[in-house]
């Protein structure tokens, strides 16, 4: 039994690639070969280069790159944008190329039996030369294309993998796939090459590109399952966004913080929790931006650092709005307490936005973050991509133990829910609804705290109005029903009283 157990825990080699070590529960299987399969343009080469670069930069582990497609010069050039000084590393004896890229000028004729003895000898020579711990084969399909006898190539690749194991290097071999969801790789290389398979995808979904990485199998080792979105950033390379792999370790705070509005604090039983996520949902013009502004203002008044992310309005508009409600954002920013970041949702992919936001939070170290509005970001993503973004962002904010307030726009003016709510409602700790109510031929506004995890709160639907000082919450709509559904109806005071008696 014990033996079985120990064989199940294959030692891992930390790759140093952000996110990958997390989803792979510690990295690639040490001393083994992992197949990285993907369609053309799925960033296999970037990922493999990063595997070697991270080894050199972070772990002091040298690498060998065996290239069958691009020439070493092209690789150095293409990867320089990620800040990897491959040519320098080559000079320092940290990186070695085995150049098996095709030479178009040389014609090769096959006349009789052959093997890949020379290639293997070169690989062994390069590994010994730089004392490599890591190795990349890019790509297997290219070898098959160069030789007519596939049986020989298969046999030889098998031999090469076996000798890599003997040399103790942890290797990545890349392979092409014909389609995103189909055979693992061309020539069925996965069958004889590797116990470990990673698939990189670049899927076109509703005319948007979405990159994902999936660990299909790690023989004898645990890993996270399913597809994880990733993005490619200049100066960094592949960044994998672990979503469900994030541990729910965030402790829960019982410290209350102000919402920036006394009356709102009151109906929330004293304010929001320190590390909670609050969703403010309402139709356009109901006052969501105001709630976000007060949330920021309240934080600054309490001496906290605040980050406001605007995806709907420009900086100018946000500042003018705040000014109109008696909050001076210009002064707050000058004092270094506030950072306002405005960006059009369309300016980048959702993955890139997420990374930008995370980076900003890491750098600015705010105590609270407001996003106005989250639903604007829905425009640039698929439903799946948006859900992953919301989960990823919320988890990150919770991990940092800061307060987050997101606004979401409902599609219809009266009642209704937003798509954002559907994805986020279980993640958020508090939900505040802002609604229009039609009463006696007049539009009034209503506010209610729909949920507040771990706390009592006012269950009433209250009217509120907005003036130059901000938001003012008034009495509850005692004799109106159907506000949340958008079909409000007057009821007689006697009926209201009777219902109240029933629930006493």
């Amino acid at each position, binding site marked *: 039994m014990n033996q079985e157990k120990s064989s199940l825990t294959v030692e891992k080699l930390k790759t140093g690639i952000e996110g990958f070590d997390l989803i792979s529960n510690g990295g690639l299987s040490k001393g083994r070969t992992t197949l990285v399969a993907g369609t053309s343009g799925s960033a296999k080469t970037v990922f493999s280069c990063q595997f070697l670069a991270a080894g050199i930069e972070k772990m002091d582990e040298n690498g060998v790159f065996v290239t069958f497609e691009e020439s070493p010069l092209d690789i150095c050039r293409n990867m320089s944008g990620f800040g990897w000084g491959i040519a320098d590393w080559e000079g320092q004896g940290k990186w070695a190329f*085995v*150049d*098996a*890229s095709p*030479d178009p*000028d*040389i*014609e*090769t*004729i*096959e*006349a*009789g*039996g*052959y*093997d*890949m*003895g*020379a*290639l*293997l*000898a*070169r690989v*062994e*020579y*390069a590994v010994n030369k730089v004392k490599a711990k890591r190795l990349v084969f890019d790509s297997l399909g290219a070898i098959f294309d*160069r*030789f007519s006898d596939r049986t020989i190539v298969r046999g030889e690749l098998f031999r090469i993998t076996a000798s890599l194991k003997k040399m103790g290097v942890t290797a990545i071999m890349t392979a092409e796939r014909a389609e995103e969801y189909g055979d693992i790789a061309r020539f069925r290389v996965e069958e004889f090459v590797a116990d470990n398979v990673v698939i990189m995808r670049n899927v076109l979904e509703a005319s948007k590109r979405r990159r994902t990485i999936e660990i299909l199998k790690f023989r004898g080792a645990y890993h996270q399952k399913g597809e994880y979105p990733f993005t490619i950033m200049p100066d960094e390379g592949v960044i994998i966004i672990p979503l469900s792999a994030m541990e729910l370790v965030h402790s829960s705070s019982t410290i209350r913080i102000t919402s920036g509005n006394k009356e709102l604090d009151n109906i929330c039983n004293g304010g929001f929790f320190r590390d909670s996520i609050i969703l403010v949902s309402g139709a356009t013009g109901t006052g969501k931006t105001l709630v976000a502004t007060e949330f920021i203002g309240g934080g600054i008044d309490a001496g906290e650092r605040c980050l406001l992310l605007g995806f709907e309005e420009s900086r100018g508009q946000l500042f003018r709005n705040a000014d109109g409600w008696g909050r001076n954002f210009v002064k707050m920013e000058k004092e270094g307490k506030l950072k306002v970041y405005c960006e059009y949702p369309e300016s980048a992919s959702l993955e890139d936005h997420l990374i930008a936001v995370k980076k900003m939070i890491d750098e600015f170290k705010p105590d609270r973050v407001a996003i106005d509005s989250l639903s604007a970001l829905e425009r640039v993503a698929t439903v799946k991509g948006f859900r992953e973004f919301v989960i990823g962002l919320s988890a990150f904010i919770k991990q940092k133990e800061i307060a987050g307030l997101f606004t979401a726009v409902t599609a219809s003016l009266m009642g209704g829910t937003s798509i954002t709510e559907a994805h986020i409602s279980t993640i958020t700790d508090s939900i505040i609804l802002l609604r229009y109510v039609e009463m006696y031929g007049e539009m009034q506004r209503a506010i209610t705290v729909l949920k507040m995890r771990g706390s009592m709160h006012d269950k009433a639907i209250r009217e509120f109005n907005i003036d130059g000082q901000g938001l003012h919450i008034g009495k509850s709509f005692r004799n109106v029903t159907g506000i949340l559904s958008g079909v409000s109806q007057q009821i007689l005071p006697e009926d209201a009283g009777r219902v109240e008696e029933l629930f006493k």
Partner: protein
Amino acid sequence: MNKHLLTLYITGQTSRSEIAIANLRHLCAEELRDEYEIKIIDVLENPQLAEDEKIMATPTLIKELPAPIRRIIGDLSDKEKVLLGLDLRRRK
């Protein structure tokens, strides 16, 4: 006739290497008389040379001279193909 300069890359003293060497010697004696020079390189002893020449498969025969440079991989048992590769036969 121009002098032929031929380099044969092999991996160790295997039977395949020996077949290739024998095939090459035999063929040269038959077809090129004295107008040739053969160099044999064992990639296990000279991996850097194999790297410089980007040799993948062994045995590999390189016809360095006369131009153009040509590569023939395999143990050279397919004589017709070898002659074709060395430009000693016209292509059909």
